[in-house]
């Protein structure tokens, strides 16, 4: 019960926050660009709409920009921003003097971050759907896509990306809870992300926690990577998430200054 109240309270804090706008703008940005691009190059689009793999192509193109940079960066920023809200407003002391356990606070906040991420995936899929339909609706000369919208494929793809982002959430959450300075989670995030980008070609690249979005994207493209042939990256992502979250939880409880 207290968890639900705590979750509601945490959710209220995201209202009009930077993280909230990041999710909204971030999820519609690429679909909007795709829509504009397709309207401008109407001739090209006319050739695309009859194709049976119209939606698969759209999925792959949309995720291309998203998976490599925007999604990891967005998750780094959003997680850090939501958590650091308390430091920025000097509110930890007030929150920690409310009648609830520290555990409740920790899990409620994490749940809000994950819910925001879920919201992002839903909005992004809605955006992708519309970027497939809207150009045809706007252009009288272009037909609607011939193929049916493969909802299951879109949902599954998003599901995997969601899992592959979890290690990012966990590590950013850990760092953002420990340090007052926003540059800390930001530089850790960018640092690990860069390292992961460099490491994707490496045989053991999958051991780096921020590589999984990249790997999943290559998989979506049908490319084989040296690291992914024999490993289940999604399991690695889940493992990292569980481990880092546990560490984060313990460190948070042990903090001597609340």
């Amino acid at each position, binding site marked *: 019960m207290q968890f639900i109240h*705590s979750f509601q309270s945490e959710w209220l804090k995201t*209202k009009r926050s930077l993280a909230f706008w990041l999710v909204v703008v971030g999820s519609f940005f690429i679909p909007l660009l795709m829509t504009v691009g397709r309207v401008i190059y109407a001739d090209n689009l006319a050739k695309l709409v009859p194709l049976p793999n119209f939606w698969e192509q759209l999925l792959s193109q949309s995720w291309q920009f998203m998976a490599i940079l925007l999604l990891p960066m967005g998750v780094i920023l959003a997680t850090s921003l939501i958590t650091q809200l308390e430091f920025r*407003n*000097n*509110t930890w002391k*007030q929150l920690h*003097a409310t009648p609830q356990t520290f555990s409740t606070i920790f899990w409620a906040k994490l749940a809000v971050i994950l819910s925001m991420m879920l919201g992002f995936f839903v909005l992004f899929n809605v955006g992708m759907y519309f970027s497939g339909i809207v150009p045809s609706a706007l252009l009288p000369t272009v037909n609607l896509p011939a193929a049916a919208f493969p909802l299951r494929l879109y949902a599954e793809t998003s599901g995997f990306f969601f899992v592959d982002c979890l290690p990012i959430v966990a590590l950013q959450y850990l760092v953002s809870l420990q340090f007052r300075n926003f540059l800390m989670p930001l530089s850790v995030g960018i640092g690990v992300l860069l390292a992961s980008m460099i490491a994707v070609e490496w045989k053991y690249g999958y051991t780096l926690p921020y590589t999984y979005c990249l790997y999943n994207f290559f998989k979506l493209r049908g490319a084989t990577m040296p690291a992914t042939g024999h490993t289940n990256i999604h399991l690695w992502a889940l493992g990292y998430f569980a481990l880092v979250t546990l560490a984060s939880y313990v460190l948070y409880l042990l903090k001597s*200054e*609340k």
Partner: protein
Amino acid sequence: MNSIEAQHLTHRFANGDLALDDVSLRVKEGSIYGFLGPNGAGKTTTLRLLLGLLKKQKGHIQFFGQDFAAKRIEILRQIGSLIESPSIYSHLTATENLLLWQKLYQCPKNRIPEVLRLVGLGDTGHKKTGQFSLGMKQRLAIAVALLHSPQLLILDEPTNGLDPHGMVEMRELLKALNQQQGITLLISSHLLAEIEKLVTDVGIIHRGQLLFEGSLQALHQKQQEASSLVFVVNDPTAALALIQPVFPSVRAESDRILLPSLAQTDIARLNQQFVNQGIDVYGIQTTQSDLESIFMTMTND
């Protein structure tokens, strides 16, 4: 019963600073306890320890007769707090800020407009609290502390940033809460004058040590004792010999005779005696030590 009973609190920060050295506090139910000390004395550290915001290193903390560590959640439900700077989410309005605390305390929603009116923020509407003035933020922070109708308020320098009019208003509000609703208050301040008219009890902390704890009357008593009378005379030795039998505590410092404070008629009679004995009196001074100066002497080593 005591609302707060803290014993032997000692706290050392990670950098090695001993911020509190064996501090014991007793806040009686229904009292207004003024917790006084200069900057860096350890007031905020003590209050943070009481609320569990710092890990307790040594000592015992009880609220309402119950151990804090064992009954933390039940106890916190009864406490409203404001520690150091206001805790306010600057991208939200005043009402939205209160709403998120309301969710946590599950108190009636109609408390929100009620406490806003109480602190004089009834009409801020859609204004983001980031655009509030310092005094407005302070008022909102007090509204947050009052929201769930706690029976104990712990306020760290609550009049910080308020204009003189606001300070008077705040004192009136706190007094009314205490008298009408029986709320116990623990208020820290570095100015005795500011809370002298409000408090019933006083604790004075300096460099992490509690120098005084008692009722305001007891502090006044100390003040009485500390005020003194000075005669400046030409022959202090003779003067001393004359009055020592009557006032054993009298002292001489160069040409000055120092006595505890006396009634006006006694001063006149003493003066007459000196003159009768051929001692020239150059001046008579009474040093009225008000509470502020006692506070200053206590905290000035």
